[in-house]
């Protein structure tokens, strides 16, 4: 049983839902990423998604693209990211999941990537450009090492296929809210809750919804049908201020925002 399995088992026993922030590693530098991770943990986030910056992220909107560019401009290497999490992860109670392009995983070597990530305290990976048909080599290593491989379902996924993806995903299932790229949205699709509920009835795997979620109202709407909600661009946009504002101030703004969302989740 992986760290994520245990986490959702506990959350379900307590009838609680997870708020899962996404941040980019190395934006604007790895010291600040470590500070943000500690802050998110202190706020009570049960799980965090750490984006490994990539040069060609086709599923990402302008906010996350720009954060990847900032991190890569500062020469953030995979080894440095692992070194940072190796130091920080043991001090946190929330597990860290990586969001990483298959280009990076493949270049490292599948087995090496998983081994290095695990040694660095990372408990799983979301690989947004690895559909289920291509996932077998990585899935095999992940299963053997008890490293969660979180797969994604999107609004364009046919229902039969969604069930197949849920069956091969481990840790949780990432439900992409909209056919599109990452980024804050005012409105989410009207049939989203209904579609998640349909899948909810057909898999025991925890389901977390991501893409576009940014407002307390979204959290209130979707919490009943999901096990967790993922918030990315809205946090990354606040982190982007760290080059212009005192870092303590940015950390405080992030904490305020997270508490707002956590409040909506409890209500």
């Amino acid at each position, binding site marked *: 049983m992986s760290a994520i399995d245990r986490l959702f088992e506990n959350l379900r026993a307590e009838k609680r839902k997870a708020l899962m922030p996404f941040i980019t590693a190395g934006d604007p530098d790895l010291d600040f990423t470590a500070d943000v991770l500690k802050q998110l943990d202190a706020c009570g986030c049960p799980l965090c998604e750490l984006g490994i910056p990539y040069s*060609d*992220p086709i599923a990402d909107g302008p906010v996350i693209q720009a954060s990847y560019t900032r991190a890569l401009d500062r020469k953030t290497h995979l080894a440095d990211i692992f070194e940072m999490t190796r130091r920080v992860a043991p001090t946190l109670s929330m597990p860290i999941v990586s969001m990483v392009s*298959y280009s990076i995983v493949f*270049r490292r070597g599948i087995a090496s990537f998983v081994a290095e990530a695990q040694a660095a305290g990372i408990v799983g990976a979301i690989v947004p450009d690895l559909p289920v048909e*291509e996932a077998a080599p990585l899935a095999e290593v992940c299963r053997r090492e008890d490293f969660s491989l979180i797969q994604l379902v999107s609004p*364009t996924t046919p229902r039969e296929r969604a069930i197949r993806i849920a069956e091969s995903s481990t840790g949780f299932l990432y439900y992409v809210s*909209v*056919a599109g790229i990452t980024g804050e949205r005012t409105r989410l699709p009207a049939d989203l809750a209904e579609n998640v509920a349909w899948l909810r009835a057909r898999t025991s795997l925890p389901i977390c919804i991501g893409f576009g979620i940014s407002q307390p109202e979204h959290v209130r709407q979707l919490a009943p049908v999901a096990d967790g909600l993922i918030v990315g661009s809205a946090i990354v946009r606040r982190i982007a201020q760290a080059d212009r504002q005192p870092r303590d101030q940015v950390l405080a703004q992030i904490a305020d925002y997270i508490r707002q969302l956590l409040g909506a989740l409890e209500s």
Partner: protein
Amino acid sequence: MTESMTHPGGQTGQVPDAMGRFGPFGGRYVPETLVAALDQLQAEYRSAVQDPLFHATLDELLRDFVGRPSPLYHAKRLSEHCGGAQIWLKREDVNHTGAHKINNTLGQALLTLRMGKQRVIAETGAGQHGVATATACAHFGLPCVVYMGEEDVRRQAPNVFNMKLMGAEVRPVTSGSRSLRDAINEAMRDWMSSVETTHYILGSVVGPHPFPMIVRDFQAVIGREARQQCLARLGRLPNSVVACVGGGSNAAGMFSAFIADEQVELVGVEAGGRIAKPGDHSASLTFGSPGVLHGSFSYVMQDEDGQTGQVHSLSAGLDYPGVGPEHSFWKDTGRVQYLPCGDEAALEAFDLVARNEGILSALETAHALAQAIQLAANRPKDQMILVCLSGRGDKDAAEIARLRQTAM
């Protein structure tokens, strides 16, 4: 029954397989949101290939709208200048819109209509694919958005204007290196949000399955005609076939007809750029290694972390860090030899062909010409070298003037 148009008898071992693999290369590394659209495209293509009406419609367009078959031309003065083998040019530059790209865009526009999609997007580097897509869309009355790197908008201004004249919207891409690679990223992002109503007409044999197969098949008309023309005119096959390779669509179309003719030497020419140093060339088959970029597994220029490397070529159409997966397959099986040609050698070949033959070739094509000229000089007079003259060079005139710092 094969899905592909070019390999009805399985003469080349029926690649790709059902997963879009050319040996180990190819595949489909894309976000889940795009998978359904790629499945739909694959299914539509499969049904189109078996529909005589589809073939008849495309053939008629290629004849009456594009002007096919394109001529096979004996470059006598150029051959004399080289003093060796005879150089023959497959004249894709005389196609409507001035390059081979139109062969693919008309085919994919027909698929767009069959799928009932109402909007088209495309990426472009040199602008030839953008113009060919804008042309096909104007012909069929489809709205068209073309993504083009800001750097390429500058260096290929005449093509930008032509696209707009035909009603296409050209969106300059300001992210990353502002060239072809970033234009593909932006087109993919658009497609992520518009996939249910929009078809992405990808312009080369790159990207996720089924694009490398479909684009090759639509370009295979180049090789089929050229092979037939060689046999009809000369009663023989060429000794060597040379084509330039960026993503590699003209080369894939040309080579596919000759793959089974083992005695025919096949040479792909990549952009060697300024020097053989990372960031100064675009020769991913020569200097790169296998990795994943833009949805497919192929040779690519990446650093040790898997980040895409910077590349350079003076020709916008070859300025790309990856290459089509079938080329990677042909490289590793040894069927095709891939060589780099530098910026300077390409410019020299451009001049030589302009002055000896009265043909302004595209700068992309000039890389293939440079290699052919070198080959010809070292081969006996009775040998025949066939070059895919993939595009015309009018679009490059201003950029050549700028590079030489001369007034036009």
